[in-house]
């Protein structure tokens, strides 16, 4: 019996696994979550709609903007609110940038899990540039609260286009560099190829979404299946893996970063002028009803089931967090592997505990 976590460098937060080991082989594993449970859903029921956005920032604290966007879209859908096109484009650009930042973080920490200490420095350097960009646009590095119900907080700064193009060029170079450093390293391949394999049917049965599902060969991406915002106007591909092993889960994300940058470039070309927010009342009272809105987060499908009773606070907010569902498969994935593999497998799922525990 080995108790891995809640304090362990490779559990990406406060996740705990009780593993029964036979020498180096993991015979059984029991995951325990809930160390970061803050009751966000319950808290949301007691906040005004505009305030709930800040709570969503704190769910998946690596991809804040994507979270904000899903909640704002759900309220907008409930109210039938049209938002300006420029705001949609700004949202998409920032969300895709956030996706790149999130995958860069994954890239580095996955390298660390496999024992390589250099990739994390490379990717954090790139991620830092994105964070500065966020700071410039939204005023904050992490908890932005930038996407508001009805649009975005303010317009982008004047030299946004120039700096975005520069940033994209730098990111391309940086990602290629990190890719070259780690992806095809023989030892890295030996550590990740064929490890933690999950079949497509099993993955669907577990409700896995996002890159973890796509690595098993299923091209399920909400941006394509059910295009929201302005995603139907862009030309981009969905990277899918073949074996559903750790390496596929890793490389799908690397390719996804490249696709995201493609989207950003197209969005920068197409972005129209105009206002960035539809003015709304400060205290929103959406009509009575319920809505389920899905969005493609870096980790998979974030769903928000919002029930309104016509009051100024949501009656019920249920979050379907992608990491929560992806993490459910961990038992299946880890059983029968080595202790060292369990760390790599957990890393390849790319969980954020803030979202798992809510």
């Amino acid at each position, binding site marked *: *019996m*080995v*108790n891995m976590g809640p304090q*362990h*460098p*490779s559990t990406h937060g406060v996740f705990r696994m009780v593993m029964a*080991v036979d*020498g*180096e082989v993991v015979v059984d594993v029991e995951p325990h979550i809930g160390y970061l449970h803050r009751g966000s859903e319950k808290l949301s029921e007691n906040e005004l709609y505009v305030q709930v956005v800040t709570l969503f920032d704190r769910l998946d604290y690596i991809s804040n903007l994507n979270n904000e966007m899903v909640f704002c879209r759900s309220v907008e859908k409930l109210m039938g609110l049209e938002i300006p096109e420029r705001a949609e484009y700004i949202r998409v650009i920032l969300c895709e940038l956030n996706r790149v930042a999130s995958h860069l973080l994954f890239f580095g920490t996955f*390298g*660390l*899990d*496999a*024992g*390589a*200490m*250099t990739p994390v*420095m*490379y990717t954090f*350097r790139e991620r830092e540039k994105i964070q500065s960009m966020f700071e410039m646009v939204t005023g904050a590095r992490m908890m932005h609260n930038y996407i508001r119900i009805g649009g975005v907080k303010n317009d982008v700064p004047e030299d946004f286009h120039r700096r975005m193009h520069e940033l994209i060029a730098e990111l391309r170079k940086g990602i290629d560099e990190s890719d070259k*450093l*780690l992806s*095809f*390293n*023989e*030892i*890295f*391949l*030996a*550590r990740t190829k064929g490890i933690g394999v999950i079949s*497509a049917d099993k993955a669907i049965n577990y409700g896995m979404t996002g890159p973890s599902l796509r*690595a098993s*060969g*299923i*091209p399920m991406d909400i941006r*394509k*299946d059910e295009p929201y915002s302005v995603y139907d106007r862009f030309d981009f*591909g*969905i*990277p*899918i*893996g*073949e*074996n559903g092993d750790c390496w*596929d889960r890793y*490389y*799908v994300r*690397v*390719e996804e970063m490249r*696709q995201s940058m493609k989207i950003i470039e197209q969005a920068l070309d197409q972005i129209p002028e105009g206002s960035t927010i539809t003015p709304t009342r400060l205290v929103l009272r959406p009509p009575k009803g319920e809505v389920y809105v899905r969005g493609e987060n870096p980790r998979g499908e974030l769903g928000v089931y919002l029930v309104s009773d016509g009051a100024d606070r949501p009656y019920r907010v249920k979050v379907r967090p992608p990491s929560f569902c992806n993490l459910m498969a961990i038992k299946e994935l880890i059983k029968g592997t*080595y*202790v*060292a*593999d369990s*760390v790599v497998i957990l890393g390849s799922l790319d969980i954020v505990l803030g979202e798992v525990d809510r």
Partner: protein
Amino acid sequence: MSLLDLLKTISAIMGMLTVLSVIVLSLTLLERKFIGRIQMRKGPNRVGPFGLLQPVADAIKLVAKEDILPTWVDKVIYWVSPLVVFIPTFMIWVTIPVARDVVIRNLDMGLFYIIAFSVLSIVGLISAGWASANKYAIIGGFRAAAQLISYEIPIILSVLAIAMLAGSLNLERIVDAQATKPYIFLQPLGAFLFLCGGLAELGRTPFDIHPAESEVVGGPFVEYSGAHWSVFFLAEYINTFAIAALTTLLFLGGWLFPGLPGNVTASGVLVFLTKTYLVVLVIFWFRGTYPRLRIDQLMSLGWKVLVPLGFINVVVTAVALKTELPEIILGLISFVILASTFWIISVRMRTAPKPEYTVRLYDPSLEGLNAR
């Protein structure tokens, strides 16, 4: 032995301890600076000019830190283990010559003595893991035992071939035998085996399996803190330096360098240190670029690749000596074996054709959503 001799030996040992401590300090700084540069950072640069005083500050911090004694540890073993790891690493240095006659006691069985003593520190690692009463520590301890014992064999085999070539186990004579040709040209395979086994013995990337930080959180050292942890730390760096020094002595011609007098102490020490630090930098370079192997992969690499290669190396050397082949042919044979091994490994690791190592792009407009 007269009293004077005894005093001389003691003072020499004290001198060695001091010099080694200084070397360890320099190594820590060098490692941090070098890896910092690999990772496009600056490394420590706040304490003193260019961060030169950083190791001193670290040492003060380590000694001043609280020494935590967990409740369930086996106290005697827990406190003794660092020493068990530490003493053999120092004892090796008694017979490692830095330049001609710059050695505490040059033994005729020097190489044998070194190999024999370096294994002893394993005991310390296992007992540290056991005494810590921590599951990570015990996993780390067992990993260390498995790894260190299996990698001792390739080291011994490669050293054996060197001893056969030089006809001696005396390190000074081995260096003298390399006056015209460093053994790395005759024994590239042996050099590879030695460095590979040495890295594993040190527990450094890519073989840092027993202190693996992301898995067993430091392995046998997980419960140690403060001064006792720093003893392990010291031993690890001295071992690193020892492996680098042995590589220099056995394969790179020790203190000899074309054009420089081999008998002058100052130039000999300088050449020796330069070569050794270069080897150390190579070891650090590995650390900056490679991920970690898994324990079963490590064992299969050790037993299925390195040990057979070691035997082949010994046999080839023996046949070459018996039939008095020209040395250049021996070097060529050795090199061909090494190159073909690399080729076979890389082919085996890329068993699948290239396309498998890519992720394809899916375009629904082409294939339709019901493709699954």
